[in-house]
């Protein structure tokens, strides 16, 4: 019965398949392909030399640089938090677990602009910690640290969200086996847990990285928009556009798009490796498949 259904689903009339394909590809083209193409067309509207000149602008360079710095700076924190949170949630049962899961999702629910304003309330001149920070000469808001904190808030759910279902599906059998064979906690983590989750972790890293580089709202609120100092690429694109510098704006946007494309390729490779590894595992354990 089920076999019959399966074959019929793949034997739809040709026109149905063609229509579905056309709808899918057409949608992709209009909402992803065209905008992406438009960025490069606009950036190159006055030829390659003008485009390259726009990219040579020191403020654009500094924006590219800062975007990469912030993305790298949030990474260790995100990994640490993501693995710890996923570990606690997947391997242990405790009171308030569902509350913790909800809290992890909070940055998804809160608008990024509101997230930025939260940090102004906390660290701004009139905020709770503002006077203390000012008295001690620490610059948080309208400086790079504030932008890192805001990006951290926006991106921290990605790794945890990626790892929780993976670790839950893996269960704790392997860890228990390691401990009963005499491994210490760290040995178990490095030799059993980490190898099991490494592709999922990498996938989460890539997702949070993509979001960190593209973030606009939260970072815009805490940036202060100092040229050559606290403008990331998305912010720099906006200001160039407002200044009627279309070439500059689209050139900067094209760099951002290229960074996104690199991320996309990395993501595809990771997905491919993940699938391959699962296939290999399944092939090695043929008995388990039928269970």
């Amino acid at each position, binding site marked *: 019965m089920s076999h019959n259904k399966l074959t019929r689903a793949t034997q739809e009339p040709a026109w149905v398949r063609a229509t579905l394909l056309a709808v899918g590809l057409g949608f992709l083209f209009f909402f992803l392909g065209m905008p992406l193409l438009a960025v490069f067309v606009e950036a190159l509207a006055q030829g390659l030399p003008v485009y390259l000149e726009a990219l040579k602008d020191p403020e654009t360079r500094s924006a590219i640089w800062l975007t990469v710095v912030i993305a790298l700076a949030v990474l*260790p924190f995100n990994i640490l938090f993501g693995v710890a949170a996923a570990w606690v949630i997947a391997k242990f049962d405790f009171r308030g677990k569902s509350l913790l899961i909800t809290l992890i999702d909070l940055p998804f629910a809160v608008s990024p602009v509101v997230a930025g304003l939260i940090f102004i309330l906390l660290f701004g001149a009139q905020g709770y910690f503002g006077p203390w920070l000012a008295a001690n000469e620490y610059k948080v*808001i*309208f400086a790079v640290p504030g932008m890192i904190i805001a990006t951290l808030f926006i991106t921290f759910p990605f790794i945890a969200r990626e790892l929780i279902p993976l670790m839950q599906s893996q269960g704790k059998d392997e860890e228990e086996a390691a401990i009963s064979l005499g491994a210490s906690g760290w040995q178990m983590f490095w030799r059993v847990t980490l190898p099991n989750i490494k592709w999922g972790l990498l996938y989460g890293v890539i997702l949070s990285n993509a979001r960190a580089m593209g973030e606009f709202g939260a970072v815009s609120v805490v940036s202060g928009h100092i040229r050559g100092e606290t403008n990331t690429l998305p912010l720099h694109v906006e*200001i160039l556009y*407002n200044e009627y510098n279309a070439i500059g704006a689209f050139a900067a946007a094209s760099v951002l798009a290229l960074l996104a494309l690199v991320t996309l390729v990395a993501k595809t490779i990771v997905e491919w490796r993940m699938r391959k590894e699962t296939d290999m595992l399944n092939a090695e354990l043929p008995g388990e498949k039928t269970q």
Partner: protein
Amino acid sequence: MKSLRLTVSSLFLALASATALADATLLNASYDVARDVYKDYNPLFQKYWKAKTGESLELKQSHAGSTKQVRAVADGLEADVVTMNQANDVEFLADKGLVAKDWAKKFPNNASPYTSAMVFIVRKGNPKALKDWGDLAAAGVQVIIPHPKNTGNGRNTYLSAWAWALRQPGGNDAKAQEFVGKLLKNAPLFAAGGRDATTTFMQRRLGDVLITFESEAEMIAKEFGKGEFEVIHPSLTMQTEFPVAVVDKVVDKKGTRKQATAYLEYLWSKEGQENAAQNYLRPRDPELLKKYAAFFPPVKTFTVDEVFGGAHKAFVTHFKDGGSFDQIYVAK
């Protein structure tokens, strides 16, 4: 992991050391299309200051929407000076105690080193023959302006039309409100900001007339080409001011009052005024205004102080909740 940490910390070092070379650093927080003016002005001032005092200054720029900028300064953005495009915004800082209450008297000309005027941008050849505010309220004309309630451009347009109607024979507030209401009915939409309005008019080719700053017309020409549109100066329009102020709280903390004050004063020098003119902002210096008369045809202007009793009063009467704009809009 270790090498990653090393990279990150060395990145920060590189970032921090880049700013440590000058004798003093000033940050100028400005509105979002001010870049060209100050990009050319900063080297002029650096040279002047170096010759006068031997000090090399680093000048940093921050650009975003005017109101957003003053909020940031109030929240701790350490700008030594603010160079804005609305008196209301500097007033906000004065209310918060960051800027002197009498900031407008600290420098000549209401602390505004240059001005601009609200003008009409029409399509090539002016096909609908739009010459003055009265023409914009005629049937079948589409007017593109940003939202009058929350953008500087929009407010200036609204007040310009109001002032024009007041000065017509038999003009009074009731007639002015009726006229502005008719004009607003001709707006198919309210753009979110000045840049948005320009895109709507130039790129989406919506509407017959765009109302914006005279100085912005030249920026539009830079992006879209001069042959695409014409600039029309109406018979009466608002002289828009660009107020500047030293942020007392910041300069006292950083010890940069001397440099910050000189930075703003120099805007009134021949060099500073000429730079403004070259960036299509009307200089205060009458000789220079004459020299650049090709850019700046004589135009009859009014100031908000003359007609509306100050920016704050104009805001309360017209744009606050329940003000004249809301009355017109609810009626519509």
